[in-house]
């Protein structure tokens, strides 16, 4: 391969990938400003602009972009609030968004871990027992038809009465959303080996555990990781939803809730941006592990 053209090719490749994303981002920002002006204008006319003297449209435009409690804050307001929360407050202050990120990430990761384990165990049981396959799978599917918002308070009350508070109930709710994609994908993945491969293990007189460890599990990895990416994102939703009915004071969900109590829309939006970034970071982390594991596993993934 030509070493000189490699960096240039790399840049071009990134450009090819990044350009469409940037164009859409620009489009969204423009749309956002237009929407902000349109939505904030009535409020600005009523509350900000002088009522007795006439005002120009430039004054109106400026007012809609920098309101105290706008209906829709402008991107630069959100960015300013986001940045100031990071740099103006110590990391252990509830006014710093990273503090809330840590709280939410903790229950997300616990829920993700427990949900993945539960999903793996359920999938292994289902694959190995026809009875459990028939008994468990309908309930597992049914569990996801119950809205998490309805489940969350129940879990909190029950676990609370058992003396569990803090991370535990939130992790359980995150787990409730996490285990499902993992179970479904792993049942499919563990069943993915072809008949010929299963029969081959049979001719070697391999035990069920050997067949699981040497054939089914490695064969299921390409199914597992997409499910983990979905699972961790679902877990984040679960963790944030779990913060709402607790009246929790910390966490991105709690931050959203207090923002809406006090009509602090800028705070809501910066918490929203932060949770999107957290979700992105978690998904990327899983994707990184996937790359590492599949390359160590060898072969053409």
């Amino acid at each position, binding site marked *: 391969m030509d070493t000189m053209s490699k960096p240039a090719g790399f840049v071009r490749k990134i450009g090819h990938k990044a350009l469409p994303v940037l164009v859409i981002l620009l489009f969204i920002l423009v749309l956002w400003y237009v929407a902000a002006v349109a939505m904030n204008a009535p409020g600005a006319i009523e509350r900000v602009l002088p009522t007795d003297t006439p005002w120009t449209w430039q004054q109106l435009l400026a007012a809609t972009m920098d309101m105290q409690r706008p209906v829709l804050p402008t991107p630069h307001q959100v960015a300013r609030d986001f940045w100031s929360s990071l740099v103006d407050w110590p990391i252990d202050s509830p006014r710093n968004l990273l503090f809330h990120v840590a709280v939410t990430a903790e229950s997300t990761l616990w829920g993700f871990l427990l949900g993945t384990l539960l999903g793996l165990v359920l999938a292994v049981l289902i694959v190995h027992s026809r009875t459990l396959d028939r008994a468990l799978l309908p309930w597992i599917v049914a569990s996801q038809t119950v809205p998490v918002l309805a489940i969350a308070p129940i879990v909190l009350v029950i676990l609370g009465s058992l003396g569990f508070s803090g991370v535990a109930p939130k992790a359980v709710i995150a787990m409730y959303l996490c285990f499902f994609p993992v179970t479904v994908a792993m049942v499919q993945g563990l069943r993915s080996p072809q008949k*010929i*491969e299963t*029969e081959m293990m049979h001719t070697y*007189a391999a035990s069920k555990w050997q067949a699981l460890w*040497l054939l089914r599990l490695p064969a299921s990895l390409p199914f597992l990781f997409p499910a983990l990416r979905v699972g961790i994102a679902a877990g984040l939703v679960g963790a944030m939803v779990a913060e709402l009915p607790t009246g929790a004071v910390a966490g991105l969900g709690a931050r959203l809730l207090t923002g809406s109590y006090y009509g602090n829309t800028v705070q809501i939006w910066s918490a929203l941006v932060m949770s999107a970034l957290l979700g992105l970071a978690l998904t990327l982390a899983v994707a990184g592990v996937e790359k590492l594991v599949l390359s160590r*596993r*060898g*072969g053409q993934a």
Partner: protein
Amino acid sequence: MNHPQDSSFLSKLRPPATGRLAVEIRQASVVYPTADAPVHALADIDLNIHEGEFVSLIGPSGCGKTTLMRVIADLEPISAGQVLVNGVSPHEARLARAYGYVFQAPALFPWRTVLANVTLPLQIQGRSKADSKVIAQEHLERVGLKGFENKYPWQLSGGMQQRVSIARALSFEPKILMMDEPFGALDEITRDRLNEQLQQLWQRERRTVVFVTHSIAEAVYLSTKIVVMSPRPGRIVKVIDSPLPNERHLGLRDTPEFVAVAHEVREALADGHHV
């Protein structure tokens, strides 16, 4: 466990057909129940396979040749009759790791290197890592794949993949090697070469081989015994003990003796068809 050295030594002393029985089949039938009439995949099969023989099962599709092999390998239950492998039931023989099975497709695990694919059965049997590696390397060398240990299956051609699967089947020195149309998916040139290598391998070891094929040339070239089968119901029409010498090379296929055996097989196949 197995005594590969011992058995190959013995079979060199005696002509193959007089060796001990490796497989004994008495009045075996396999019937699949279906909605209308039951399907007789195999009907009243009688067959003896002696240690050290190379036996080919040949016949048109649906004649039950693969089913018969699967019965011997305990991959398929019989509905009636008796099957003994090394004097015990196929199930016990399988648990005693009596046979290596080569399937129509190589069935290599894509996440394992060539070497790790060959060590798989040894790993299952709980052999030490170091031992397994030495054994696997030796077997890869025997099928002409020295130097490919660290490649992944997808980096190999179809013929090489099937050779890896043969090395894998032989890695734990099974008494019987079962091959179900192992070269069916390969081109004729590769197939000829692999047939020659398989023939040489058998010459060296004189291991019992059961080989399923629908190629007359392949069956005649490789076998000491050719079992001609016919469909509906699956049955044996003729068992031909090959008069060809044990030492064989591809040139043999143009000799009158070879042509005569091939003719006999073709006649038997045609007879089976007209019944």
